[in-house]
């Protein structure tokens, strides 16, 4: 935490005048907070890596309330921060209102791809494609013919994960049973490992022997219980294979850290536009390392590599939950 040790001037007013000359990037975390073991933490990791490698400094804030979103955007923009990197779909609406007022500032937003502004870099991830691949692996590893999905908060984004996963599992075994549960309906669902553990046990009792957690900090409880009960689990966002070596089948990588690192490295003249990071761009993928080497059979590897190439080439199409707010392979 030595990134910006000194207080930025005696008051905000001082910071406002001093800030104009610095043009350091700013990072706005979503409500989950910087250390959510998932999405925001990945952004933090990307930013820290940039700071370590370049010796640069950046401002950051963790959101506490919805009203702060626009406030933080405006304050950082007025203080001369550039680019301003924001996390999560909750920033879409505030950005739509704010971006036009600061044409000289470039805004970067992760998980948003539908806005229209010239000074905006929108980075989306094809989570359904990555989830499809781990779904295939889950179905191949399952002996009971039942695999589980544990989501965090019940929002479209998480259904999007689950939908890709179910399609992948069914591509391998059309008769497979996919059990899906959401942890909750409040933001607390992102950080409830105890409930994650209970849901895992419930899914095991329904026959699941591989569970995929797309639930932020809740996933820690899912992976732990899966390891304790002797079944396989699948991590999410960052490579979580090391948490329980030999017991985590794989992790669905979503390289938020790379998106943040790239934006910070490019600095003021970061390219604007819409960027969807799919399998082809290595924005999403499956984690293969020494921790899961003995779990991944050659068949699995071959099937995943083939599917990956098929998706990139367009021979296989993974249906996105967003297309018509429903999933062909899974009922929520």
């Amino acid at each position: 935490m030595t990134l910006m040790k000194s207080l930025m001037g005696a008051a905000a007013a001082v910071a406002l005048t001093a800030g104009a000359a610095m043009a350091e990037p700013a990072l706005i975390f979503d409500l989950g907070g910087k250390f959510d073991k998932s999405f925001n933490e990945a952004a933090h990791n990307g930013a820290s890596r940039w700071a370590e490698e370049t010796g640069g400094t950046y401002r950051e804030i963790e959101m506490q309330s919805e009203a702060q979103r626009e406030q933080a955007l405006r304050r950082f923009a007025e203080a001369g921060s550039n680019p301003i990197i924001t996390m999560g779909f909750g920033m879409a609406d505030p950005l739509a209102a704010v971006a036009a007022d600061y044409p000289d500032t470039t805004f970067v937003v992760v998980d948003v791809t539908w806005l229209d502004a010239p000074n905006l870099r929108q980075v989306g991830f094809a989570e359904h494609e990555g989830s499809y691949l781990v779904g295939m692996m889950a179905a191949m590893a399952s002996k009971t013919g039942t695999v589980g999905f544990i989501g965090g908060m019940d929002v479209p984004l998480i259904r999007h994960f689950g939908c890709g996963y179910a399609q992948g599992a069914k591509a391998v075994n059309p008769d497979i049973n996919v059990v899906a549960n959401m942890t909750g309906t409040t933001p607390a669902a992102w950080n409830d490992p105890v409930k994650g553990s209970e849901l895992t046990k419930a899914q095991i009792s329904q026959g699941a022997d591989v569970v995929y957690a797309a639930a932020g900090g809740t996933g820690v409880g899912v992976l732990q219980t899966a390891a304790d009960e002797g079944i396989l689990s699948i991590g999410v966002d960052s490579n979580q294979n090391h948490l329980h070596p030999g017991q985590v089948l794989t992790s669905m990588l979503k390289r938020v850290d790379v998106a943040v690192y790239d934006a910070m490295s490019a600095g003021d003249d970061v390219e604007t536009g819409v960027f969807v990071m799919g399998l082809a761009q290595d924005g999403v993928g499956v984690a293969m390392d020494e921790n899961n080497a003995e779990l991944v059979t050659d068949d699995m590897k071959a099937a995943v590599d083939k599917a990956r190439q098929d998706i990139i080439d367009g021979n296989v199409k993974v249906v996105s939950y967003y297309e018509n707010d429903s999933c062909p392979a899974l009922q929520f």
Partner: protein
Amino acid sequence: MEKMPKWADVVLIPLISLLLATILSAIVILAIGEDPIEAVNLMVTGALGSTYGWGYTLYYATNFIFTGLAVAVAFHARLFNIGGEGQAMLGGLGVAIVCLSVPWPHWTIALLAACGASMLFGAAWAAIPAYLQAKRGSHIVITTIMFNFIAAALLNYMLVNVMKPSGSQDPATARFPEAVHLPSFQSLFSTADNVVFRGAPVNITFFIAILACFAVWALIWRTRLGYEIRAYGFSETGAVYAGISPVRITIIAMLISGALAGMMAINNVMGEAERLVLNSTENAGFIGIAVALMGRSHPFGVFLAALLFGFLYQGGAELALWTQIPRDLIVIVQGLVILFTGALDNMVRAPLEKLFISLRKEAK
């Protein structure tokens, strides 16, 4: 006979509690290696040093006035309504339905309708726990807190499955049409060459909150119903002896309480976000408990306490923006204020009472 003068009870005790909380917070800030004087300076200039800062402080305060009044009214009937959070969520649902389903010609009419809808939805959400308490004896604390979770689940269902524009990835309703946007302080008070409250979310709802303070004061101290509510709160058996129906008072007090909590949605949903998002209430329902405790359940006290918490919220945001002080510390500061003004009230009160009694003896 009074142990100490009224001014000491109303002004001195909260001030001393606040001072104690500030000192403890300063120690915590020192302990993590930051300068507490700088931090206070930043909070004060950030929250009160400009019309922009005031704009946020008053916006938060408006939320807390409504939820604080809601808790206060229930307190007078000795009912602990901790369901303000859920009632405010439902109020937001009512506002969103009203704003989106009817093509309103002008915001004034929409405001009236939205007020009605928010009160109705908030009151309806309080009605079930009220009924269960009055008729079945299920404790209101348990039922209202459970209803917060049910409200969150209901809101989630409505936003994700029903009210979300199709194709949107954000679980929120569409933006309300231009005609129902409430005037902000910026549009009300800015002149051509002097823009004040720039970008701040405070809006005309602030005045409605002040009206609500007067209305609650008049209700509690100037009407027969208010007298009955207070009488019931002081002594249930006494109230029954006087012919006051406990069932009726419990239900009416909770309905008023729920309606007030629901009205918060006018501010945060219609006034600020102009759409309904999942996380619209952001614990204002719980802050309302602290506000009512600190304000001694009196509307004027609630008003002042809401301003204080508005200041803490906005000042805390400025701290988070410009320093490395983590946001959890701001929660600690807020928690200390709640602890000292609410839970540890007697720690300050008892010695102060002794002091006043001994002073009085000396004077004789």
